[in-house]
């Protein structure tokens, strides 16, 4: 699903965020991306979502080489993945329904279909009945779940999440993680960047640990042997 081949990323300010990073994620896999702040986790996710392009190396997602994808195909490419942010990035002045419907609206899905699929996505995250609420009326955990509903409403084969539990307490974090696991069970590839290590260890899933823009050799993935 995701393949990084000797990927380096240098930002215009000269900082090298990734150097010669290589890894692969299989279809239907669920895994974690860990490491300290500044280790390159966000950069990896940005390269996958094509918010950035690599300076060197090849990033391929779902069989598409992102380096050679023309700009006009980028929107279509992005419809094939769902993104969840720590700060959920909801449109605060729009009701929940509009927020979740956005990926379908941009993809020219019919209104009838939008209605059906938004309800289905809200049902999956346990927020059916909150369509008309605005995000500010919801709790932090609920807002994050709206963000997740928006990421999965178009049924993308790949879901990436940047610190999705960063603002949540342990109970809410476990709840959100349970949601991701359920999507993974129906075949969605899930990649979660986090520094919530207890949560990672508890899940027993594969972990890619970054340090200074490469795979941290000192810290072997502890649970990899179990898989």
């Amino acid at each position, binding site marked *: 699903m995701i393949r990084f081949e000797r990927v380096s990323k240098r930002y*215009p300010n000269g900082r090298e965020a990734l150097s010669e990073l290589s890894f692969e994620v299989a279809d239907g896999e669920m895994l974690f991306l860990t490491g300290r702040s500044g280790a390159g986790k966000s950069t990896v996710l940005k390269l996958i*979502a*094509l*918010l*950035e*392009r*690599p*300076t060197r190396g090849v990033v391929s997602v779902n069989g598409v080489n992102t*380096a050679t994808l023309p*700009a*006009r195909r*980028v*929107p*279509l*490419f*992005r*419809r094939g993945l769902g*993104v969840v942010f720590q700060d959920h*990035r*909801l*449109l605060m002045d729009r009701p929940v329904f509009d927020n979740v419907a*956005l*990926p379908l*609206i*941009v*993809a*020219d*899905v*019919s*209104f009838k279909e939008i209605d059906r699929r938004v309800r289905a996505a809200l049902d999956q995250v346990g927020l059916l009945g909150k369509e008309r609420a605005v995000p500010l009326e919801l709790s932090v955990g609920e807002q994050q779940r709206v963000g997740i509903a*928006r990421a999965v409403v*178009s049924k993308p084969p790949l879901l990436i999440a940047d610190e999705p539990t960063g603002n949540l307490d342990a109970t809410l974090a476990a709840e959100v993680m349970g949601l991701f696991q359920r999507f993974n069970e129906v075949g969605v590839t899930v990649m979660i960047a986090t520094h919530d290590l207890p949560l990672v260890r508890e899940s027993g899933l594969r972990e890619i640990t970054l340090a200074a823009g490469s795979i941290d050799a000192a810290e072997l993935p502890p649970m990899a042997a179990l898989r």
Partner: protein
Amino acid sequence: MAGRISNWGARHGHALVSTTGHLMRHGMATTLTVLAISLALALPLALNVVVRNVRGAGGSFADAIGLSVYLKPGTSEQRARALAAAARARADVASVTLITATQGLAQLRAQSGIGAALDTLPDNPLPTVLEVRPTASAAVPQRLDALRSQLAGAPEVESVQLDRDWAVRFDAIVELVRRLLWISALLLAAGAVAVIGNTIRLEIQSRGAQIEVTRLVGGSNAFVRRPFLYAGVLYGLAAGLAAWIIVALAGSALAGQAERLAAAYGGSFVLRGPSATELGTALGAGAVLGWLGAAIAAGRQLSRISPRSR
């Protein structure tokens, strides 16, 4: 396929409705923007109305223009009638009045009160005259000159008199106003584009978060731009309508005075306000300028928040 087209139509309808709603919710800001653009459109529209009215008035002045064609002494009345008929047949001539030497003498006797003096003359000294009036469209300097030289070409014609100074001046003034109209229209059109462009730029900046999220979930540039282009066109259409109303109100406020002025000069003149065609032009110009301003602003702003390439 039909489904896709109807979806496409629904999307555009959705963008139009949501943009209209957005503009209505920000009534004060929208009103000020529309007012600024409408003033920029109103001035050229007003000048156009002025030029059109002055041209119309000029057409009625053409009645006062005449060429006096003096025939050589001894030209027979029959020959004079033939010349008058030939002149009358021309496309640029409205009417020809033949005044024979005898008629001329009779007129002079009746009007001048020098009848006794005229009686002492052995012969009638007056020539036969053709009073030629050009059509309204021919009452412009170049065509009058052509008409004059062609009339003077006949062998029986002694001379042709034409007072064309006023026609030249009048034409020059109308031409000056018309050029002023074009220059002001160009400058003010640029002003309208700038006002709309700036409004849309601020709008895009204030909706930066929304645009970013829209792009992230796969919204194309066209999708992101669409509501802003609609906003630009709506601003332009509203401003075109407002400009037309402003000029119509100004025209009706001036109509009475213009008629009094014309009456004082012994003419009859009706000020014609902006026409339906001019409403169409104002709306069209507004829409095009609005679209242009929005497209320029959206192009610049959106390229700034595109994903960086290598």
